[in-house]
């Protein structure tokens, strides 16, 4: 797996970020084994690779839920009621920021500006962005994730 992904980026100079991004797609986070293998393949120290994996907020070295919900907490969303959205999610999912639901379906996180302030308040679920949220849209979205 790691060898294959590293091979894919062989022609790219300093491809570490792209490789980690691709590898994370597999399990939703980067395991210690994967990081060590990447280090070996690229001839870097494991510390350097771990350092990069823990620096960027889109990488994770701990397991996450199937859906990572990132609530934008930047000022334009804040002014437009992000805190209500966050409270609704906390109530509904019964988790706090940084935690994952017991069924492993959702992880709740905060994020800085998603650049869709025109439709604040906004959240990002995995790679999709959703804006102009209210209680109704939010519960609709959660049910869709739950497959209901």
């Amino acid at each position, binding site marked *: 797996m790691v060898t294959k992904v590293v091979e894919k980026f062989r022609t790219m100079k300093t491809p570490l970020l792209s490789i980690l991004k691709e590898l994370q797609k597999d399990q939703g986070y980067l395991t210690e084994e994967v990081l060590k293998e990447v280090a070996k393949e690229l001839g870097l120290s494991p510390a350097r690779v771990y350092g990069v994996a823990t620096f960027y907020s889109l990488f994770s070295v701990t397991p996450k839920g199937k859906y990572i919900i990132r609530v934008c907490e*930047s000022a334009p969303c804040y002014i437009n009621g992000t805190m209500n959205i966050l409270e609704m999610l906390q109530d509904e999912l019964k988790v706090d920021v940084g935690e994952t639901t017991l069924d492993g379906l959702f992880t709740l996180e905060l994020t800085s500006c998603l650049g869709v*302030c*025109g439709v604040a308040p906004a959240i990002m679920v995995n790679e999709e962005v959703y804006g102009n949220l209210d209680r109704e849209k939010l519960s609709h979205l959660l049910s869709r994730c739950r497959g209901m």
Partner: protein
Amino acid sequence: MEFYRNHILVCTGEPCVLKGALEVESILLTELQKQGLENEIRVIRTGCLGPCNVAPVLVVYPEGIYYSGVKPGDVQEIVAEHLVKGRPVTRLVGTDVEKRVDVVYQVPQILTGQERVVLRNCGIINPDEIVEYIGRGGYEALGKALIHLKPEEVIEEVKSSGLRGRGGAAFPTGLKWSFTASGEEKYLICNADEGEPGTFKDRLILEGDPHAVLEGMAIAGYAVGAEHGFIYIRGEYTLSIERVQRAIDQARKLGLLGKNIFDSGFSFDVEIRVGAGAYICGEELALIESIEGKRGEPRYKPPYPGQTGLWGKPTVVNNVETLANVPHIIEQGAEWYKSIGTPGSPGTKVFTLTGNIKNEGLIEVPMGITLREIIYQLGGGIPDGHSFKMAQTGGTAGGCLPPEMLDVPMDYDELAKVGSALGSGALLIMDDRHCIVDLLKCFMRFFNHESCGKCTPCREGTPRLLELIEKIMDGTAVKADLDLMAKLAENMEISSLCGLGQSSPKPVLTLLEYYQHEFLAHIEDKKCPAGVCKKLQVKGVV
């Protein structure tokens, strides 16, 4: 060439997509087919039209009628009434979804009074079709530069245009180019790591007119002698990445990127690098570290990137909007460019209007326009009968201005005089329902999270400022804490390593200066005048 009696533009900027533009488009196509109009009326996807708060937006040409807030259920009526019978659906025309204005042929208020240079194609052309860009004169400036101008003449033109960096630092672009050291291998980087809260202009430029940025990059590459270009896009901007990649592929196919462009002997190609979630990577040296596969921590300066940049080679880093200005300067000349804006800040600026303002969205106006004009004319004022309390210019790292400063001209130097900055062009408007201290906590929490930890003033300064703000909100602060905050902020400003720690004190210092009474109300009267700080509300009632 096929001819159509009507063209319908469907805005597919991210805000419109999020509000269902693609669903509206698909129903529109079906309805047109049902009526047998598919060969008479053409539906075209465009980039951002601007009025994001009334998304999704359709424009019907040749009439030029804007339909806003179009729901899937409205499409059938638009087709049956307007496109079949020629009677525009008045209830959908206008600026305000709630009180749909009964005036036909009216463009949304936010679109009046603008001067579009960078955004001239946004909302007009299909960003996924290079021929539409070329049809609007695209890549002519690149041809002119490569065939008729020497690299140093290109630099001279940009220098004399007075163009300054649109990412926030406002450094003169031509000067930056002229500082690039000589060398065999050089790099040109387009900084599309747009992370300043409240800013989404670069996203909408990339999504609405990606070729303008590529053309600007190729011209810049020619000017400084770089054959390799990188565009570093935020990992969160999925749609931008997709559209830019498509644009690169199309430009390569037509020989507008790649080897020996226009048979001039100049070669230039562009590669996308995707960020992984770090605000600090918008800082040019942190961005370079990130492309090099490292933690995005800024380097010490000097050496500047122009001497020692990416992989140790001379490198120029320019913002998306800066580069999108370049083709226009080359094509129409520095004199024309200087005729727009103010002497110290020529040209236009793209702003993003957010917060408590009627018309949220994207605008492009000449530099020097006042805050009042932006808020009350283009922005339509403060909604729901509330009054204006504060405007933060330049994003979360910008200063906060009170109502007395509404007439300050929006240009680099004038804003610097009042302790603020034009920054990225983000404008956050806040009404009287919000508490200054509570909002400052929101700003500082952001910097506390995003500070990379490399230098002490920023790493230690941001959490201490956050603690002091929380003390004020808890009612445990004393008056001397305000002096401590100011002192700490001033120290960070002068001693932090990069722009993050140097500019994050701006909101602290401006709020302390212009809203001292509100801080004092929290500290001395234990009251939150806006009634937001929960711990004080109870005590405040007594």
